[in-house]
């Protein structure tokens, strides 16, 4: 009973936010003259969670579902990256840049080599972790050593990575037809593309298994280890953590390193799993949306799985929604934005709810008082 109560406390505000976002989106869709229910149902159809009326050859609901899983795997890593940094009070806005750096490095080292699948696939993952980790560590180091605000430095690195990598792609690795980087070898892809099973051709995302393991590992790290506790302490109050004897600088650098490494994993599963090539001069939205996803999932690794599935469901299904319900696919990000808007207010809603409850049960008992305080301080 207590567990259910706790769970309900955790999910009720995200649920409220989602509900509000869907209503707002529904109103916009209705005003522009389409049926919102049909539009939302086609979101489910586009992601393989509901049957479509007809399928092309070699396609079924299962293939849609797999391609949806293929699509949301990078987002899980990216959201975890944001969550780990946020635990230590840092904002990693540079996940997109770390993804690009890791994806590009893995592409040129492994993707364009002739290595066999058994060596290539693990190597891609290791390179992703290392490159992303370094990119994150630099940001942490700049923060610790030079007091550079991590928001600014990660954004600067985003642009630096974007332009430098675009230069290298355009100079050395460009595919003259697609104007993108050359496709990586099938052996190095983390998704088994177009694998024929029975009469279906399925994209099997191997990354999803790694993602689920990582979710557990990150949860274990944050909740069950000394380091996780230290990160949390630093996130709550740097001065108090220092007073307690925690090495704040180490925590800042480490949390950014872990965050960057997770961003790197997001990068390899995106560029060598989902896509297979890199478009120059484009920074994917995944890194920015990941902030939203992490926020919606209460920065909890398990919560992130569900919020990832929801947010990516909206964006993945939006192409199908456009073709069936005639609603512009851009509405997807509007809905996401509104959901975010409401989940950003969660501290206030929590505080307000606690306040009402406290007023009902006067005199103020200590637990409610703590909640009110926590709500205020969660800035």
């Amino acid at each position: 009973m207590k567990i259910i109560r706790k769970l309900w406390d955790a999910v009720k505000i995200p649920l409220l936010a989602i509900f509000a976002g869907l209503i707002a989106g529904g109103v916009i869709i209705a005003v522009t003259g389409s049926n919102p229910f049909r539009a939302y149902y086609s979101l489910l159809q586009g992601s393989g969670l509901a049957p479509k009326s007809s399928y092309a050859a070699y396609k079924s609901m299962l293939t849609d579902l797999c391609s949806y899983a293929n699509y949301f795997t990078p987002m899980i890593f990216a959201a975890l990256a944001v969550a780990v940094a946020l635990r230590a009070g840092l904002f990693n806005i540079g996940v997109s840049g770390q993804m690009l750096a890791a994806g590009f490095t893995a592409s040129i080292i492994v993707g364009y080599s002739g290595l066999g699948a058994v060596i290539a696939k693990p190597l891609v993952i290791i390179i992703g972790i290392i490159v992303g980790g370094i990119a994150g560590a630099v940001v942490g180091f700049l923060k610790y050593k030079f007091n550079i605000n991590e928001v600014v430095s990660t954004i600067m690195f985003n642009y630096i990575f974007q332009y430098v990598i675009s230069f290298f792609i355009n100079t050395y690795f460009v595919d003259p037809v697609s104007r993108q980087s050359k496709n990586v070898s099938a052996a190095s892809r983390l998704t088994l593309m177009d694998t024929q099973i029975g009469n279906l051709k399925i994209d099997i995302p191997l990354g999803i298994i790694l993602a689920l393991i990582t979710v557990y590992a990150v949860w274990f790290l944050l909740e069950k280890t000394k380091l996780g506790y230290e990160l949390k302490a630093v996130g709550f109050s740097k001065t108090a953590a220092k007073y307690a004897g925690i090495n704040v600088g180490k925590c800042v650098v480490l949390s950014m390193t872990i965050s960057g490494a997770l961003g790197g994993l997001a990068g390899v599963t995106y560029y060598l799993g989902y896509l297979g090539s890199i478009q120059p001069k484009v920074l994917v939205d995944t890194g920015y949306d990941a902030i939203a996803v992490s926020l919606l999932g209460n920065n909890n690794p398990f919560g992130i799985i569900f919020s990832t599935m929801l947010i990516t469901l909206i964006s993945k299904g939006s192409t199908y929604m456009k073709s069936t319900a005639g609603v512009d696919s851009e509405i997807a990000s509007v809905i996401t934005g509104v959901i975010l808007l409401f989940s950003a207010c969660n501290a206030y809603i929590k505080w307000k709810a606690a306040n009402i409850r406290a007023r009902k049960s006067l005199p103020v008992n200590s637990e409610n008082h703590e909640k009110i305080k926590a709500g205020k301080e969660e800035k």
Partner: protein
Amino acid sequence: MDVVIIDGLSFALPLFIMAIGGIYCERSGITMLAVEGLQGFGAFTGALCAVLVSGSFSGNSPVPFYIAMLFAFIGGGVFALIHALLCIKFKANQVISGVVVNILAMALTAYLTKLLNRVLFGATSDKFVLTVSARITIPVLSKIPVLGAAFTNLYPFELVIIVVAFIAWFVMYKTRFGMHLRACGDNPHAVDAAGREVNKIRLAAIIICGALSGLGGICFAYSISANFSSSIYVGYGYLAIAALIFGNWKIMPTLGACLLFGFARSGGYRIVQVLKLPSSYQDLVMILPYVLTLILLMFFSKHNGSPRALGVVYDKGAR
């Protein structure tokens, strides 16, 4: 050399006006990461109005541009109310709120541009086509050697920005409101004790920030891209934030930072042209302002004086 100065100024000044907006907001104690979104939304409203009215003016009339500037000013200010609502009323985390406002601005402008193009003009397009603003040369001053370039081939908006920037500087440092605003960022309780409402001053600061950012956005739309589309979001808003941190939250040093970014960018382009390098080298040059920011921040961030109450939700009862 002249080209470097002309292009540098036309990039630095819109950046500067956005950075001033950021300074207003941050000096009042509200963390402002939403400049990117605000400038985009301002540019959107401005561009929409320009497209709507352009039919009733002759082809090269400058009037639509001034109307666009006015509405960009208003649009940015109105959109900033979302940030104000989240930060002041709902006491949300100000960094998160900034990111949310950015995401929402990008989503809404992309959606509305497509929708309005279809509804109003019957066209399937994801951009509002604008013109590149005509340039003017100031007669006597432009004859001065070297420095004269600063008065040659100006976009008219550069003059507007200089006037607005001066007013902003005056309000910030020479008026009672400016003093209260700065005090809000350092010691809001003192402002409260002096009988002013902290939240009202902060609200005003956020609206000013949105308005100035919107102005900067429409200037970029009229000079660099000559249209409004999602390509307006290339991170100049974040660059403005970097400039204001580098300028230590003061207006005049921030101008220096913006000029540095502007000249680094235009100088880099010029080098690529002079050395006749292939155009892909432009990508390498593009990183100059960003690398420069990082290096300079390394030297100046250690002892920077961010407003003491920056990012702290004002709580009347706190000690």
